[in-house]
């Protein structure tokens, strides 16, 4: 923590910054609820993340505050929210990197459960079903006794790199196109297609992938605003993947 953020109080005790959280409150289940901002004050602690700050607020100030979390370590992607207007994971954001006034709001595009909690799972499931994000094999039945085909380690690494996506929804919330057009598959969807396209176990051809993303709600709807790439908490190479997919789908379209 920098010297500007804590001062020595009389008696040798360290005094931390006082943070003010402006949180968007709204409960869609309650007909009397109206979207409004509610402020909470909290003294910053050493190594405090937004997740810890929210837990403090819920524990000691307002038990009705709704937000999501599971892993607290940037793995589950549940705690994605708008932090000062930009999507990010609460558990991966340190308060020391922010000012003393912090605004928090739920991710747009996704169904709002309440306050900062959104149903990304519902959206992601719809996307997965639409893009069929699983390995398609020609074999009708899975033979568990049969040894898997060997895979080149570099290729396996490339697939794993794209598989690091935690479906937090940050890329969708950061996408201007997804904001305007709710049928847009978003970077998460295109990253999935790029991932299965790499996978040699998946027998789908480029023509098959074109059926999934070869239109304006797919890769051709992407306007390369790159909000997705710039906010991805897992730092996935989304720009490169979308460009790659676009080139592949164009080659199918020109056949």
């Amino acid at each position, binding site marked *: 923590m920098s010297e500007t953020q804590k001062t020595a109080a009389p008696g040798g005790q360290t005094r931390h910054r006082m943070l003010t959280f402006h949180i968007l409150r709204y409960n869609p289940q309650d007909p009397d609820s109206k979207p409004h901002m509610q402020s909470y004050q909290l003294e910053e602690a050493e190594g405090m993340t937004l997740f810890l700050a929210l837990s403090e607020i819920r524990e000691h100030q307002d038990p009705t505050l709704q937000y999501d979390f599971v892993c607290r370590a940037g793995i589950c992607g549940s705690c994605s929210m708008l932090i000062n*207007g930009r999507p990010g994971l609460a558990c991966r954001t340190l308060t020391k990197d922010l000012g003393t006034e912090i605004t928090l709001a739920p991710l747009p595009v996704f169904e709002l459960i309440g306050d900062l909690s959104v149903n990304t799972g519902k959206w992601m499931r719809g996307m997965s079903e639409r893009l069929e994000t699983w390995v398609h094999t020609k074999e009708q039945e899975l033979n568990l006794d049969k040894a898997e085909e060997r895979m080149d380690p570099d290729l396996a690494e490339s697939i794993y790199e794209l598989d690091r996506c935690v479906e937090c929804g940050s890329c969708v919330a950061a996408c201007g196109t997804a904001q305007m057009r709710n049928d847009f598959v978003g970077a998460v969807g295109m990253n999935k297609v790029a991932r299965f396209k790499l996978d040699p176990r998946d027998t789908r051809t480029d023509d098959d992938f074109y059926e999934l993303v070869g239109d304006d709600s797919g890769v051709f709807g992407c306007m390369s605003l790159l909000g997705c790439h710039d906010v991805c908490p897992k730092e996935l190479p989304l720009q490169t993947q979308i460009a790659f997919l676009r080139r592949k789908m164009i080659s199918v379209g020109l056949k």
Partner: protein
Amino acid sequence: MYNTLIAQAGLADRPRKSRWPAKLDLLQSLTGLFLALFMWGHMFFVASILLGKDTMWTVTKFFEGYYFFDKSYPGIVSIVVACVAVIFICHALLAVRKFPISYRQYRTYRAHMKSMHHEDTTLWMWQVWTGFLMFFLASAHLYQMMVWPQNIGPFGSGDRMWSDGLWPFYLVLLLCVEFHGGIGLYRLAVKWCVPNASREFLKKLKWGITVFFLILGLATLAAYVKIGIEHQDNYGEHYVPTFANQPVGEMN
């Protein structure tokens, strides 16, 4: 023969998805690339006035075919302008598909842009507005150049700026072209090929090029306005180069 009927039944995309979105996406990029590069060349041609009236006159005559046919044919310019106009209309048609199509979409995007503080997201709104303005400004300019190509020249262009009162029109058009084209070229690069590692450099390059062309464009505009002011009493008179004793062809 039954394709129309199949489309009418809403089954045009079955069983195979249309290949048109791919073609249109590529065409949008290609027409944009052509127009942006054309505008770079165009800027250098019109900026030849900064090297003197004779230089600009020579460039004008070159495009009218004078140095190939020993006679000026402004019709050649009309044909080139017509081709550019067709490409411009195609690009406008393809790009307008991406515009916000309702106030709700516009408001949503604007709120998103303001809260994100993300340069590439903000620049898209610049592209939308400059593109929208160019529907009118560029169309008017193209029509004028297509119908009266003989009025392109040191005096003709100067008169158009000052005596015809079009300098504010060209000032706005210049800003629109330079911002729209610069942002568009940057977006084409990140859209198709340039890796993210080069993005920051590319963005700096883009701004550098935009500033360069804006300075060049403003200086050029000022030069034509100055000529227009000096020449206002002889409005309509065509320029005769200092190295020619007699008018050659249809001198402007």
